[in-house]
């Protein structure tokens, strides 16, 4: 295939993705409106914004993480983030009691979660990129083991708190796009936009990093510094989206791999926006479909996680077969 045809194909597909994302947003905002628009539009608009922030954060973080780690199976979320989130929430309810946690300033809890997750991830990544351990399977194992540990501690705490607190806790543990604090949403949107801008300026370096550590050093990319910086950005993005709506483990895996599949190119100038658009379509379109058409009020997260989980298993099986 000639490069012109391939370039045109990529432009077409990007345009199509952008169109679909717009359609999804329109459907989400406008379909099935009962009641007054004055109430409905701001309400739906806020939810749309939350979905968009999370979609972009997860898509960008996954593609960058996979480029940095040179793999297409691991995502930052699989590395135990969700379990840590559960543990923090449980710890809070256990330590302070349900009443006081509900009364806590949402911003304080948000900041706390963000901080804990960033520290955890940086420790893990530092160790992984340290001189001793570069083995991806080992890292995956460590992530899973830590995740299990966090979940076990959380499970133990959940068993010994009183039933009322437990109900409150359970509510907080599901990824939910409904109950997002508007102030936090604005803040998160600003941070995600800023980080996306930084990533956009690093697109040439990301392209080079995809060649591998040694090739990147050979071409003069400040590899160590850059990788650490990128991992900080990834961590912030994932922690932000988790703190905002709760854990969404497999979405990133789903959208990143769809982007690689639909757009046969190594260029991050294409892959990053493509993954973000696919995530927008999946989350917003999925939510529109579930809420407006099928009238399900189940969390979309469940459906996305199911699909993403299937993709994960497929990738693992294919990886093993190869």
């Amino acid at each position, binding site marked *: *295939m*000639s*490069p012109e045809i*391939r370039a045109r194909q990529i432009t077409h597909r990007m345009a199509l993705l952008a169109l679909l994302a717009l359609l999804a947003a329109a459907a989400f905002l406008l379909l099935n409106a009962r009641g007054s628009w004055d109430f409905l539009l701001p309400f739906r608009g806020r939810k749309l914004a939350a979905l968009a922030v999370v979609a972009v954060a997860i898509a960008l973080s996954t593609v960058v993480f996979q480029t940095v780690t*040179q*793999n*297409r199976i691991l995502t930052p979320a699989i590395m135990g983030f969700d379990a840590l989130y559960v543990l923090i929430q449980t710890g809070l309810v256990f330590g302070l009691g349900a009443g006081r946690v509900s009364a806590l300033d949402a911003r304080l809890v948000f900041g706390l979660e963000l901080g804990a997750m960033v520290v955890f991830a940086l420790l893990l990544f530092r160790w992984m990129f340290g001189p001793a351990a570069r083995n991806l399977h080992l890292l995956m194992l460590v992530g899973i083991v830590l995740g299990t540990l966090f979940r076990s501690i959380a499970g133990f705490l959940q068993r010994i708190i009183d039933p009322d607190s437990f109900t409150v806790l359970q509510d907080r543990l599901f990824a939910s796009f409904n109950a997002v604090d508007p102030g936090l949403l604005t803040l998160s949107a600003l941070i995600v936009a800023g980080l996306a801008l930084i990533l956009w300026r690093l*697109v*040439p370096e990301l*392209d*080079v990093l*995809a*060649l*591998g550590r*040694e*090739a990147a*050093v*050979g*071409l*003069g*990319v*400040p*590899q160590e510094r850059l990788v650490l910086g990128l991992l900080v950005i990834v961590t912030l993005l994932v922690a932000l989206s988790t703190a905002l709506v709760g854990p969404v483990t497999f979405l990133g895996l789903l959208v990143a791999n769809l982007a*690689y599949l639909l757009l*046969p*190119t*190594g*260029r991050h100038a294409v892959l990053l926006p493509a993954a973000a658009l696919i995530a927008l379509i999946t989350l917003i379109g999925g939510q529109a479909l579930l809420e407006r058409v099928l009238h399900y009020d189940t969390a979309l997260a469940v459906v996305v996680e199911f699909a993403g989980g299937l993709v994960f298993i497929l990738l693992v099986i294919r990886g093993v077969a190869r």
Partner: protein
Amino acid sequence: MIEVEGVERRYDGVAVLSEVTLSLPKGGLTAIIGPNGAGKSTLLSVMGRLQKPDAGRVTLEGMHLAQAPGRAVAKKLAMLRQDNHTAARLTVRDLVAFGRYPHCRGNPGPEDQAQIDRALAILGLEPLADRFLDQLSGGQRQRAHIAMVLAQDTGCILLDEPLNNLDISHAVRIITLVREAAQALGKTVVVVLHDINMAAAHCDRIVVMKGGRILRHGTPAELMQADFLSAVYETPISVHELAGRLVAVY
């Protein structure tokens, strides 16, 4: 001008390079030969600052490699590794274009395009330029990686077993090419080779390594000696003169 001073490299306490000191003048083609595990690739990686030495240092035209900014070094020194595999889905042209990254940071201008086209042409890759790397044969992929190094257009070029997987015609073309680059353009080229006769016929200097040390360093005529080569490779080797060349037979 590239200088290696007292370089040491250890893996888990085992020295794979010890006390390596080597000074290569600007211009000229140098071959590094030696048995498997001699430390040739390790030395080349240290010279190409892909690995940090545990002791000693490497300087390129007076520039301390470990401390100089990466892009500045990449404009003067390019390296081909022994194993090249890329996970990313790239076409040959994409890969070769990466050689221009140090000069244009992913934004190729006409000069960069010209260099890319030139490198593709030199390695006979024009018909394959738009193929993906995973659709190539081993030798074709090797040529694509060499083209990327050439596109980097540096004064110093390090090639680790560039003739791997290549047929005779391409092997001769490439060794002649780097020889001309060294002679006519004054480039400093270092190649790791396993074919002693190729090294003797085309290179200005030969460096013989074994056990992490440089055993000898000299002209092909000085080093093409039957008992020395036999001892290095622990294999009976005889040297004959054939068509005006020193040829090792083994």
